[in-house]
């Protein structure tokens, strides 16, 4: 039986634990449940309850106070509705809704309250209590975005660069690859993780099917991404309150890494479903509804969530005084961390002018717009570069990429315009024909299969070929083949150049040109 005894069960340890236990009796404030419906309870009493406070029902179901009215409170239930009955006693806990976060959470799947739901047992190790709702860092605790967050996707890293601490919206219809884009970004962080510059990732699944979440976790695990990723899941079968809190839980976990001086990336997939869950809760709480029946504060819902993504100032003594710091984090704060947010919004039939999409577009620092027509043409990732922007990421782009891809966006815009004109006539002048040819080939270069993120050095090298017209002698249907040959050659014989390009220097372009010539010569034989 000795093998069943754990190290933590030594008498002295047990004694120390028991010494800390108090059983002092205290007056508690209680209320009575008057009404329960669809995950919301109206409680009489609880006169001194605070907004956002956790309350406990008989039998252990927890709730969060949402509405404070004259002599009654409205609360959302965080558990099963059928366990709460009329007349039940409700007890105040005096705590704000929060979850426990720790290093051992990496690789786990948790619900919005931090309870593991992957069947791998309790989360061990030191845990820190992080409140779900927390004020974003103030202006003096922030710093402009300056380091790049590589997505591994050529079209994004070249034309819509994302910086650490940025909020970049991924928007598009259903089935356009929004989740795929986010997952690719998470998978691409593996390189940095192995190099010792990790970006911890948090994937928040809101209102998705349980099977979809399981698939995503499996995909991440297969690509070795679960080593640095936490999945927060509130599936479609969870109460609306949990779906509403899931993104806040993701932000709270991200803040733990951000405030301890590390870099984190949080994907909210997706915020339209969170808005729908919040609408449900608000309507049951009888809050007045506004446009599209969303409550008046649905903008505030998303703005306060996304404001929590930030690049923290690098001065330690300033960062330590950060506003609204939870008690449990005091003394652990390190400067220079960041939290990048990639919120996802699903549009209906490409309508970006609906309520929630316009709200989130105006909150974020840019958007990546995915189009189903591009997707169906086989142009994947189906990013419409023309209307996708990154308002702050340019400052964080590596110099080599900036130089190589600087004109790519304008070139592609020109090509798209010419392309639509050239449909009317077959004979075009030489310059136009060249622009068209280059544009078509660059488009081919930007096509990238799923789950195959590309290191920055390789991206710069191949885009150098595209933007400098080095592929003019290659037929359009052999561009992909050229790309494979070229990158293989570079990897095997010029790894130092690829590494240098990835670091930001633009040396060795003459070698690239020479290699391209020899590859083209080999291809045409």
């Amino acid at each position, binding site marked *: 039986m000795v093998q069943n005894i754990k190290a933590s069960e030594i008498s002295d340890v047990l004694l120390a634990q028991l010494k800390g236990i108090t059983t002092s009796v205290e007056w508690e404030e209680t209320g009575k449940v008057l009404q329960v419906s669809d995950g919301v309870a109206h409680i009489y009493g609880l006169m001194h309850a605070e907004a956002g406070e956790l309350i406990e029902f008989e039998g252990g179901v927890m709730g969060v106070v949402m509405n404070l009215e004259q002599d009654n409170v409205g609360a959302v239930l965080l558990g099963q509705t059928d366990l709460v009955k009329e007349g039940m006693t409700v007890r105040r806990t005096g705590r704000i809704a929060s979850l426990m976060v720790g290093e051992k959470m990496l690789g786990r799947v948790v619900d919005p309250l931090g309870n593991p739901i992957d069947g791998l047992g309790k*989360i061990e190790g030191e845990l820190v209590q992080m409140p779900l709702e927390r004020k974003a860092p103030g202006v003096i605790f922030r710093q402009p975005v300056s380091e790049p967050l590589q997505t591994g996707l050529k079209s994004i890293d070249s034309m819509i660069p994302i910086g650490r601490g940025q909020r970049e919206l991924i928007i598009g219809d259903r089935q356009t690859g929004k989740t795929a884009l986010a997952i690719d970004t998470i998978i691409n962080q593996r390189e940095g993780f192995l190099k010792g510059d990790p970006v911890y990732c948090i994937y928040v699944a809101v209102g998705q099917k349980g099977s979809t979440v399981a698939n995503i976790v499996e995909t991440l695990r297969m690509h070795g991404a679960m080593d640095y990723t936490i999945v927060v899941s509130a599936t479609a079968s969870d109460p609306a309150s949990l779906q509403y809190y899931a993104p806040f839980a993701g932000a709270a976990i991200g803040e733990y890494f951000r405030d301890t001086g590390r870099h984190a990336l949080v994907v909210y997939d997706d915020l339209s479903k969170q808005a729908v869950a919040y609408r449900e809760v608000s309507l049951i709480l009888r809050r007045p509804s506004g446009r599209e029946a969303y409550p008046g504060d649905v903008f505030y819902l998303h703005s306060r969530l996304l404001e929590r993504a930030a690049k923290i100032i690098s001065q330690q003594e300033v960062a330590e005084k950060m506003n609204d710091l939870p008690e449990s984090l005091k003394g652990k704060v390190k400067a220079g961390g960041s939290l990048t947010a990639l919120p996802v919004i699903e549009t209906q039939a490409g309508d970006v002018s609906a309520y929630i999409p316009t709200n989130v577009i105006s909150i974020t620092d840019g958007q990546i717009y995915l189009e189903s027509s591009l997707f169906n043409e086989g142009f994947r990732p189906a990013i419409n570069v023309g209307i996708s922007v990154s308002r702050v990421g340019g400052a964080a782009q590596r110099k080599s990429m900036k130089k190589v891809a600087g004109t790519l966006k304008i070139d592609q815009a020109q090509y798209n315009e010419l392309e639509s004109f050239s449909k009317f006539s077959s004979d075009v002048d030489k310059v136009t024909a060249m622009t068209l040819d280059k544009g078509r080939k660059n488009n081919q270069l930007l096509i990238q299969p799923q789950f195959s993120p590309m290191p920055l050095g390789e991206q710069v090298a191949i885009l150098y070929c595209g933007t400098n017209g080095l592929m003019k002698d290659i037929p359009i249907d052999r561009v992909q083949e050229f790309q494979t040959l070229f990158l293989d050659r570079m990897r095997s014989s010029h790894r130092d150049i690829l590494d240098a390009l990835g670091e930001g220097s633009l040396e060795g372009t003459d070698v690239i040109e020479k290699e391209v010539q020899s590859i083209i010569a080999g291809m045409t034989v």
Partner: protein
Amino acid sequence: MSTGIIAARYGRALLKLVTGTGRGRQVYDQVQALMDNPQTPPEPLEDDLVKFIALLSSNGRLDEVRYIFNSFLRQYREANGIRKIHLKTVVPSPELEDRIRDVFAGEGSELILSTEVDSDLIGGFVLQVDDRVLDASVSRQLEIIRNQLIEKTNRIV
């Protein structure tokens, strides 16, 4: 959204009405009986209460009746200095009741004391005064210890 305001206003109106007619205590008892046992209303209902329910009906506020009655009960107790005390014990304990009466006697307020025997408590007592609870039962203490052990050792006990 405005349930609380409606309940407080109607409750105050009923309180003023019964203070005027002087049937306050009878109405209070009947409302309390209605809340405890809505399926068997007391017979005959007080005139004031009948009038009040008719008003609620004509104003379309019968949906909020539980909130309104609760608010009235609280306001009536506050206005007349009544404290509602509920005592739960494992075995009937007249000595404890007397002691509680003594403790609150000094305040000069009227006490409505109800008792309940509940063997699930294992030991000790639960004292509820208005909406505050002093849970000194053994079962609650065991629960507190259990929760603290879970928090400390990070393991389900």
